Each structure stands twice: as structure tokens, then as C-alpha cells.
């Protein structure tokens, strides 16, 4: 009886049928000329908004590192004649989620509210965008919280590894800075810095908007105009240059008194605008991005028990791309693990992936896409990311065809491109045995600005 069931099971493993639209995305142009991507869903009385400006922490100057971070922490500390406590109280009493965040290339705002509190949510978001108070008390409080965050992070080996890797990989480029700021720079930042940074980021020509939930196209356009209509069209900000790849093959170690070594191995990556981008997505899934299905996980965790987990991830920025493998393991296992990572990378270049492996990767990548839109906020966020990557409104529905078109030869080619150079290796924690590495004794852009 059981075996019959299982024959059926394996026969049913076909890719997710892609005939229906993944999301019904409408492009709405507001009366004031702002573009909104909208997914209407009236099944729950909830509205979500995500927006982004196409500038992020990379436009902070080295001596004001962290100013974009501090801006994201102080916009929700009151506006006009409404001080921090009243603003936070209004959010809380109306169950409104409202927050700001940022990356190296973007500044984001997010809001989620019950439909019946939408007018209040709009009022609070507009106030935060247009007239933040930046009271000294609030700025000082958020400064202290950020400095405490950096000090807490000083005991986190992964955070330290990221500081060193950014410094090595992006040396001489704005991306080498710490987006969260340094103790030194945060100490000097003031309300005038925040006002100037806000003015630099908040311009309509660099704005993208996504909305989902219980809202009509007409209401969506009106909300966009209400929130952003008062912003200037443009502002001059420094252009971020494309990054020139640093010298490959560097190996840096930072000592920490913990039982494991936190290992990061980084190569240059493939841009989201590159013709090989979709091949790189499939390649990375097979290599180390696919969790329990990946080759790195199979070789290093499943077969040998060397680590709890090993993953490779692509970091695609506007002006630089990288692929990073990370894992935590005993210092005596670092050399063996580096050798295995090298062997798996070489195999991606030299041996075409077999049809079964390719199909499994394609099945996951195409089949998992519709599952990503499980909440209003995630959907609104996805609408913004699509626009930031300059994708067409049909991109979600086109995605499967692009993934399915990837061949074993494409994967080999993209692996040749990525793994052409020796990687940069960063080790933090227990000292790796049997490996010569340059030892660093300070963490760049953590407490003080790295020169």
C-alpha cells in the first residue's frame, strides 16, 4: 500500500504550473505624476506600503558614516508639534507598523495598517517624511543606542568578518564604509547633518513605491501624492563610481577568544543586469545557495560533519557584486574546508552539471517564487525591489522561462567568470591551524574611521 503511494509521489514532482499570473500587479500613475506598483487584495482589511529612494548609506561621507542609519532611527521620533512620545503613542494605539531602513544604495520606508486606521497612518507617515523634528533629546538617545549596538556587535564574529571583508573588497570605494556608522562618527553627528541627509535622499526622481492590500488604484494614487507630492523633484548627490576589483587572494585573520573560526570566502559576483545573471542564480543554488540541496552542504556538513551550516550568497549592489561562502567551524578544520570549497568550485567550472541536478535547481527556483508573497508587507517589498532592479512589470511571470533556459554550459561559463580568481579569505575567532594569514588587530570602521 505504502510503496504504491510513493510511486505516485515521485511521479508528481513536476514544476509549478506557471499559466496563472503570479501577482496581478497594476501600475498606477497618481494625479501628481507619481508611479505606484499595486497589488489589490481585499481579503483582509490591511494595507501595506513600501517605498525606496535610490540613494543609501554609500552617499555618507567617511567622517559622517552612520548618518543615514541615524536618519532611519530618528524620522519616527516626532514631527511638527507632535513630540516623540505622542508619535510613538499614536502608532501604538492604532496598531500601525511604521519604520525606516536603508541599504548601501537605498533608503526605505515601510508602513502597515488596518484599513480603518489608514487616515491616521498616512498622517503619521507624511509627518515623518516631510517635517521630522530631530529633537536633541531624540537624536542623543538614538546615538547612544547605536553606539551600544556597535559595542554589542564587537562580540559577534560574523559582524567583524563583514567589516574586514568590506574593507578588503571595496578598498578606496564608498562601499568600504560601515553603513551603521562608527563610534567616532556617531558621536559627532547632529540635527543639521540629519536635515541635510534627509534632503539628499528624499527626492521624487529617485522614488519607487509599492502598495498592497485593501486599497484601490485611485486611493493608492491619492496616498502617493499626499505622502510624497511635497518633495522636491531632484537634488544633487555625489555619484557612486563602479567598484574596481581588488587584488585577489588576500587572507586576513582577526583573533577572538571563541571555540570556532568564522570563515568567509569571497569572489567577485555577477550583476543583476548581466546577461549571465540568471545562470549565476542557478549556479549559486547548486554550489552553496540551496541549503540542504547544495553541494557545499553535502560535502562539508552532511558527509563530514565539519560545520552546522555552510552557505553561499550573492550580494548584488548597484556598483559591485560578490559571492560569499560562510561557515563556522573548528580551527583545525579550516584548511580541510577551504580545500573542499575549492574542489566544489573547480567542479562547477570543469564538469557540466548533470540533468537531474539542473532540473532540481530549476524546479526550486521557479516553484518557490509564488510562495514568497505570503504577507502584504512581503509583497509590497517585492514590488519595490522589482522596480529598483529596473525590471518590467511582467518580470515575475517571465522569471520561470529565464531560469528554465539556463543550460549546463551557461553554468560552467558563469562559474569560470566567478571562480577565475583566488578568493579573499577572512577568518575571525579561533586561529586557523596550518594556514598563513595576515593578522589584523583592529576592526576597520567600527570604533574609529579607517584611514
Amino acid at each position: 500500500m505504502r510503496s504504491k503511494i510513493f510511486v505516485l509521489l515521485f511521479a508528481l514532482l513536476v514544476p509549478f504550473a506557471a499559466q496563472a499570473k503570479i501577482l496581478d500587479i497594476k501600475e498606477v500613475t497618481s494625479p501628481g505624476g507619481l508611479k505606484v506598483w499595486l497589488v489589490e487584495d481585499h481579503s483582509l482589511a490591511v494595507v501595506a506600503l513600501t517605498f525606496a529612494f535610490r540613494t543609501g548609506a554609500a552617499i555618507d561621507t567617511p567622517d559622517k558614516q552612520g548618518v543615514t542609519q541615524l536618519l532611519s532611527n530618528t524620522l519616527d521620533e516626532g514631527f511638527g508639534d507632535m513630540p516623540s512620545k505622542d508619535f510613538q503613542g499614536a502608532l501604538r494605539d492604532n496598531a500601525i507598523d511604521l519604520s525606516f531602513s536603508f541599504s548601501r544604495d537605498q533608503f526605505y520606508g515601510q508602513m502597515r495598517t488596518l484599513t480603518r486606521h489608514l487616515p491616521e497612518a498616512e498622517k503619521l507617515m507624511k509627518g515623518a517624511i516631510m517635517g521630522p523634528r530631530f529633537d536633541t533629546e531624540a537624536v542623543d538617545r538614538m546615538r547612544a543606542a547605536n553606539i551600544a549596538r556597535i559595542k554589542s556587535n564587537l562580540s559577534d564574529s560574523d559582524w567583524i568578518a563583514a567589516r574586514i571583508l568590506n574593507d578588503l573588497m571595496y578598498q578606496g570605494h564608498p562601499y568600504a564604509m560601515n553603513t551603521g556608522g562608527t563610534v567616532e562618527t556617531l558621536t559627532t553627528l547632529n540635527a543639521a547633518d540629519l536635515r541635510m541627509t534627509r534632503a539628499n535622499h528624499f527626492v521624487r526622481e529617485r522614488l519607487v513605491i509599492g502598495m498592497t492590500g485593501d486599497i484601490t488604484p485611485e486611493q493608492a494614487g491619492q496616498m502617493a501624492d499626499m505622502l510624497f507630492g511635497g518633495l522636491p523633484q531632484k537634488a544633487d548627490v555625489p555619484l557612486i563610481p563602479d567598484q574596481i576589483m581588488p587584488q585577489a587572494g588576500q587572507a586576513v585573520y582577526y583573533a577572538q577568544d571563541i571555540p570556532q573560526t568564522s570563515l568567509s570566502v569571497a569572489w567577485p559576483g555577477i550583476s543583476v543586469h548581466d546577461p549571465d545573471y540568471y545562470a549565476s542564480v542557478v549556479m549559486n543554488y547548486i554550489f552553496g545557495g540551496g541549503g540542504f540541496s547544495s553541494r557545499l552542504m553535502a560535502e562539508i556538513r552532511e558527509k563530514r560533519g565539519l560545520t552546522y551550516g555552510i552557505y553561499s550568497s550573492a550580494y548584488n549592489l548597484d556598483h559591485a557584486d560578490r559571492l560569499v561562502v560562510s561557515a563556522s567551524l573548528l580551527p583545525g578544520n579550516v584548511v580541510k574546508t577551504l580545500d573542499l570549497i575549492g574542489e566544489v568550485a573547480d567542479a562547477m567550472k570543469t564538469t557540466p552539471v548533470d540533468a537531474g541536478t539542473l532540473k532540481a535547481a530549476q524546479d526550486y527556483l521557479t516553484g518557490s517564487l509564488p510562495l514568497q508573497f505570503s504577507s502584504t508587507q512581503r509583497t509590497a517589498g517585492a514590488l519595490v525591489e522589482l522596480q529598483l532592479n529596473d525590471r518590467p512589470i511582467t518580470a515575475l511571470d517571465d522569471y520561470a522561462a529565464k531560469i528554465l533556459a539556463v543550460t549546463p554550459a551557461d553554468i560552467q561559463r558563469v562559474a569560470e567568470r566567478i571562480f577565475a580568481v583566488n578568493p579573499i579569505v577572512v577568518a575571525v575567532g579561533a586561529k586557523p591551524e596550518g594556514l598563513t594569514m595576515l593578522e589584523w588587530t583592529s576592526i576597520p570602521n567600527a570604533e574609529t574611521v579607517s584611514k
Partner: protein
Amino acid sequence: MVRKLLLSVSLCAALTSGAFATDVVTPASDVHKVYNAQTAVLDNGMEIVVVPIHRTPAVTHMVWYKAGAGEEKPGAKGVAHFLEHLMFKGTPHIPTGKFSEIIQQMGGDDNAFTSWDYTAYYQIVPKDKLADVMRMESERMNDMTPPFKEIVSEKEVVIEERRQNVESSPAATLGEKMRDVLFEGHPYGNPILGRMEQMQKLKWIDALQFYKHWYAPNNAILVVSGDVTLADVLPLAQATYGALPKEDVPQRARPDLEDLKETPIVTHTQANVRQPLWEYMVRAPAAHQAPQDSLALDVLADLLAGPTGNLYQELVVKEKIATSINAGYDSTALDDGSFMVYAVPADGVDMKKLGDAVTRVLKDIGEKGFTDAEVKNSIARQQDEAVYALDSLAGPAMTIGYALASGERLDDIETWPTRLESVTPAQVKDALNKYVLGRKGITGYLLPPTAEKTGGKDAQ
């Protein structure tokens, strides 16, 4: 088939006092329910809960076993979690290492987690794959067969998990030390993964014994949330889990928890610590132990926590002796729940001074209490927040499974926002005085190395 469906449904009606709804039966009660979950019980005793959410053509499928680290024998600590790992190592029809691969080929994601009171396995898949994952999960409920060499290497994996997530994390290590004192003599005081010396002794035979004792359909809860109804799920459940035999499962037997005799302070210092942390943890009743007190504690935690809460407003905004502070109440546990306050001291602030200030703020409220308006507002906003529970695919299955496996009843989970309305300011005040202030709890300090002797001055 239809007759059997109705039979199962009526069986469940008797068990859950009418607190269910299905496609065939209309709910009798008009009290607002958060999830409008549909329930049934299979003939072998396996409970089924379905939360229909029709926004994405996907489902979250979970099986919760009512057994976790709390059921481990003295010589086999950590074995519940070790077993959870071995459950991915093969069954007669699913080769070693293939379980997750098969799920991923469906476009899905899967994983599992272990706590003191439960072990849970889940898959998030397109809804047309639900039957397949139910076949797979039901097979490993009864037929797990890991090869020997996988057992050996997986033991190394869980040991590395502990090194990575506990021994390299000063805050996690402090948390272990605090639980060790607060829950002394109770399984809640022992780490879920086990201590390092306990993990070195992990054995296949102990994992197998745990599996045979506790993994059975009548000790498991199936929770499915997503684009299905009970009418879709029940026949599939009968064909898969329903084919498994009912087994004799032991009663869960836990030692009683005793009040601390004093208020100890536990410190943890590690070379890489730069930022001190202050924590306080005290036992508080779980929701199923003292329902009304638990509701009052929910309101108390809401009023104390967050940037508008009393603790933040007094100690971060006004006095500036902390850079952040928060409070939380964990009401979901088979044995006692807990109430916590945790803070980051401002630069140079002594730990004792911070602890005294927290106590002062709490005692002040313990005398004055909250106003009627404050309590009403707290209840209203928590009711609003409850609407967001359905703005998620996996969230409802997680919340319901967690609560049911920890001794709560579905009816109580469904009606929580409505029941909250019964809380009065006097009850909130009493809950604060009775539990948070009235019981002795454990204080924890995370300190940089040089600060240990001076009692908490930040090292610069």
C-alpha cells in the same frame, strides 16, 4: 468517505466543546475567532487543525510532537534535538539526505525545531503538493532508518551547532546560566541542545528509544494553514497518518518548580564582550495554568514594553541610565511561563544602579497601578494587532501548533482577543505585585572582562 468525514468531525465536537467550524457544520458560537480554524481527530488519535487562508496557492504543513527536551532521561540530555536532526536521514522510500531535496524540488522549504515542550517539523509548499508532503512526513513518523555513518557525522553537526550558537555567543551563554538557576532541577534549566559534556554522550540507542516512546500519531498534532480547508485535508490525512497505528505513549511527567529562596545574580564574562547587558527573569504562570492572571500579564507586558512603555520612558528617555530596555511575557509553556526585563545600560552606569531603578519603576506602578484608560487602550491595540495574525502564511500554523503542544486549548487561542476584554486595572496591578515583584527571580549581568571586579563599570 463523506460518512467518515462527518464521524470525525462530530468526534472532535465532543473534544473541543463546539469550538470548531467546518464546511459541513456551522459554528454555534458567535464569539470572534482569530483563525476560524477547523478541526478533526483521526481514529488513531491524531489531532488535525486547518486554518484556511486563500491568498496564495500555498500551504504550511506542520507536525508537532508533544515531546521535547523536557521528556529526556537523565543520561540522554540533548537527544530530542539530536533525533530531530536524524529524522532527515532516511526512511524506506526516502534515501538519506533526500527529504529536503524533494521538498525543494516542489519549490518548497522545510525544516524542524525542538524545544523543551515539543518537536516540530514543517514544509511550506504549493498547495498541490500537500498530499506528497503528508506521505513523506507520515512515513518518517514510523519508519526512520538512518545509516550508521550518518549518525556519527550528525553528532558532530549538532556539537558544531552548539559551538556556533551558544559557546561563541556571550548573550546566549548568560541565558543558559540564568535558566540553570531559575529552573534548577527542572528540564527547563537544561539547554535544549544539551551541555557540551552531555552532547559528547549522545547515542543512537537513546534517540531510537525517544522516537519509539514519543513519536506516534496519538501524540502528534497536524496543523495546516493556507489555501485549503478541512474537507481537502482530512481525506489526505486519513490516507497517510490515518494508516499508522495508535501507540502507548507515556504521560509527560515533569518535576514541580519551586520558588527561589533568594534573588541571586548570575554574571557572565567573556574576553570579547564590550557592551554590558542586564537581564531579569522570573517565573510566571502559563496561559493554561492561570488563564485570567495570564491575560492580566499580557496587558502588563504590553504597557511596560516598547518605546511608549513605562520602563523606556522612565529609564531611557528621562533618566538616561539605559540606552534600551524592554519587557516580555512568555505565556506558552507546558509548565511555568516567564516574565523578563532586559536592558542595555548607558555608558558607565553600574549594573546594581540599573537593577534598582527597574525595581523602583515597577514598585511605583505596583502601588499606583494603571488607569482604566491605559488598560482599555492596551486591550484595544492588542485586539487590532491580532488581525495581522492572518497576514501570514506560516504564522497561524506556528502559533497554533506551539500553543496546543504546550497544553493550551484551541478555543482559548481563538478567543484570546475577546477574553482580553475582561482584564481590569486591578488585575494588572495584582499580577505585577503577585508574580513580577512578589516572586524571586534571577538577575543576569553580561560584563566585559575588566569590569567584573568593579561590579559593572564599562571598560573603555
